[in-house]
């Protein structure tokens, strides 16, 4: 099943290279997709911001009481966690449809297939940018102690975005072939949300803190959230995130090399 010739690998790498540097189309397509969703609405994509903001305000008020947390610290923790979680969840869900939604292009003309993946990641980065307004408002309000750790924040985001790329290729390819997977992923993402420390903190679980430690999504969350709270992500989080990234990229290359030519037949 996985005999991969040197030619397959070089074609896969060329596809990625051409998508990133050769074609000036994915930033445009990503933006148009967001515009399309909010056509003719006055606030446009800022509806995302408003609905996320309302959600965080209500959850913040209720859960800070529920968990007996001090409200200012909890709000910052929740707002950042929630917004970053939405980014990750968006990547996981959209990863399933990268190639399926590019069907029209894929069957008609030769374009690097990975432009559809980059478009998907870019779209989710744009959504994140809109939602991030909430984080800024919350931080202006509650003023967490920020320090030099802030410089780690863009780095953390970049790591998540790169993971979005490999996931977009890998899941996009599998979902193009097996159309039940998108539904499975969608349900899993919802379940995993509750297993990931977004609403709660790992120390609240006491002896069951390992639930977080063994959850890779927790570590991705941490490398973005901690710098914004003026702390350094643990080295465990960095190692877990970088391990996932490199393992994912290898998996992506293996699958993409092997099945790249089949995608046009599957979508």
């Amino acid at each position, binding site marked *: 099943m996985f005999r991969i010739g040197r030619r397959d690998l070089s074609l896969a790498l060329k596809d990625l290279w051409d998508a990133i540097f050769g*074609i*000036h189309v994915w930033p445009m397509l990503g933006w148009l997709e967001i515009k399309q969703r909010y056509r003719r609405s006055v606030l446009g994509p800022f509806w995302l911001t408003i609905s996320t903001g309302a959600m965080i305000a209500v959850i913040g008020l209720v859960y800070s009481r529920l968990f007996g947390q001090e409200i200012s610290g909890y709000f910052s923790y929740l707002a950042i966690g929630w917004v970053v979680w939405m980014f990750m969840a968006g990547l996981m869900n959209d990863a399933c449809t990268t190639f399926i939604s590019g069907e029209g292009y894929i069957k008609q*003309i030769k374009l690097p297939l990975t432009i559809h993946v980059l478009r998907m990641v870019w779209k989710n980065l744009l959504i994140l940018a809109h939602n991030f307004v909430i984080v800024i408002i919350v931080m202006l309000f509650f003023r967490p102690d920020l320090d030099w750790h802030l410089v780690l924040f863009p780095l953390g985001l970049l790591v998540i975005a790169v993971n979005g790329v490999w996931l977009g290729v890998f899941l996009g390819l599998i979902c193009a072939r097996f159309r039940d997977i998108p539904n499975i992923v969608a349900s899993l993402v919802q379940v995993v949300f509750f297993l990931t420390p977004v609403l709660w903190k790992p120390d609240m679980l006491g002896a069951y803190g390992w639930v977080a430690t063994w959850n890779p999504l927790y570590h991705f969350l941490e490398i973005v959230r901690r710098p914004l709270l003026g702390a350094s992500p643990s080295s465990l989080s960095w190692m877990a995130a970088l391990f996932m990234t490199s393992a994912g990229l290898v998996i992506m290359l293996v699958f993409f090399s092997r099945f790249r030519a089949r995608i046009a*037949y599957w979508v």
Partner: protein
Amino acid sequence: MAHVLARNVVVDFPIYGGKSRSLKSTFIRSATGGLLAKDANERVVVRALNDVSFEFHEGDRVGVVGHNGSGKTTLLRVLAGAYEPVSGSIDVRGGVASMLSITLGMDMEATGYENIFVRAAIMGLKPKETSALANEIIAFSELGEYIDMPMRTYSSGMAMRLAFAISTSISADIILMDEWLSAGDASFTQKAQSRLNALLSQAKILVLASHDEKLIRNNCNKIMRLDHGQLIGIEELSAPVAARVPLAM
């Protein structure tokens, strides 16, 4: 040197919904469509192109004919590079302009102007190169002020004019067309045809799939016949290419 070399090209489309159908014989012939078969994994496949070999060289104007489902469009898509053959090889030298779907990528919510950039980017142009072409495209499409309106406000004729103007503004070595392109009302059609002819005369190779044999005889110097995904033959047309003569469509 632009050329196309196809060696024993086979294209199978797997049919993933069709497992429940039992196929009694390995190949079933029907009036239209490719051959239905089962592959090594017992999947139902449609063999859209079966062992097709040919060569096109500079100066070739190839008309592809065959009834519905004979593999014309699949052949064009293979030439465009969208489908890679399941077996056999295809070697295409030269820049390919695929005019199989000239509205591909156009977004109804975006303005005509934005769509020029989207379409051109899909056809491989950088934004800077598109800027240089944009004014000419707008002038040719005669859309005037509408160019800054969302495309959903266009009539279908207007949308086609824009798509036509964009697609025919980019020259290429090899041009692939599924049916002859045409757009707009009577006066525009004439203008459009001369623009298309100018573009085609610059191209080194043209591959045109059509049901209209007269059209093909007027514009091509070779006829390629396909039937059930099989190449029946390539006939050289003795008459000189009449592509420069405006066509009465």
